[in-house]
């Protein structure tokens, strides 16, 4: 019973939007859009805000993974382009958000800390 319902739910969530495009540029556009949806903006901004340059480093190294459902039935060329574009876009978003948080942290530190050293993200 549980197995069956698990299958139902699994397949239900397989039915997440999967878009097919004929051109690599369209595939990249789709991957970038999915990355935009998947990356948790608030998380990375907060990490940058709380951990300054360390949050920034983490944003560069730790990436979200794309939904496997998006690649079911797709050609190897599609998957190849999708993975690369998703990874690059996700990293860019994370780093940017984390940098913004790092910047905020630095400004707060400067205004409140008097002699506190500048954060690495301002160097």
């Amino acid at each position, binding site marked *: 019973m549980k197995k069956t319902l698990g299958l*139902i739910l699994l397949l239900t969530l397989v*039915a997440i939007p999967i878009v097919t495009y004929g051109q690599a540029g369209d595939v990249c556009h789709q991957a970038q859009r999915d990355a935009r949806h998947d990356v948790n903006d608030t998380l990375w901004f907060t990490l940058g805000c709380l951990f300054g340059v360390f949050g920034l480093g983490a944003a560069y190294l730790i990436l*979200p993974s794309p*939904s*496997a459902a998006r*690649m079911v039935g797709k*050609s190897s060329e599609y998957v190849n382009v999708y*993975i690369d574009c998703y990874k690059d876009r996700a990293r860019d978003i994370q780093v940017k958000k984390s940098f913004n948080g790092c910047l905020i942290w630095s400004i707060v530190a400067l205004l409140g800390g008097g002699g506190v050293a500048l954060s690495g993200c301002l160097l």
Partner: protein
Amino acid sequence: MIVFLSFILFTVNPGSQSSIQTPALSADFILATVTKERGSTDKEVVRGELYVMESGTVIFSVSTPVNQIMWLKRDTTDIYYPDEKKLFRILSKDSLPDRNTNVSRLLGFDFENQLHKAGLKVEQTEKRGDTTVLIWAFVKKPTKINIEIETGRIADDLVLYRTRAKGTKLEFQFRDFRIADDRRVPHHIRSMFISRKFSKIEDLRLESINTDVVLPDNLIVTQFPGNTEIKIVNW
């Protein structure tokens, strides 16, 4: 493919020490997708077989439009193209099944129970034809969340799950209930995602759901051919 892999782990006996090669169930599937964006419409049909293993691994064996085999495990997704001898291996520290099932943690084994656990309650009940619709609301409404959630049943069959928020709508319809594994199982699932500039409708049809199967030899892969082109993606 996000929260649903967590379901697989919860619903397919994740603590079992059964062989990874023992399918909990299998099914033939047809997934038809219609996407509309920027004035253009794309249609796609994917056909194949699906296996859910006792270990929680999920295997898609796709026959159309490409020959593709996908193994989804806890921390690895392998996408293999036998005709081209190409393998993509996606490794993730962020557990893939959890990551791959983020559609909603509300989509659980028991929808209504999951909604209760998420802090919602039934605010209103309506009868729409033969469907009993429950309208849900947060017990303590979060200030920044404005979302409408409805579930619908015909007798004991869950036929509808719908959420609306900020100009977007996500809806699942469950149809064509038949007996499988001693339970009534929907053999047709439709999902619709609609926003201002983008819409996607997917119809997933299942056939031959079977809980007593043997995994085909070509899906029991311990090593790939020596000339396989491998791309490892470390997330």
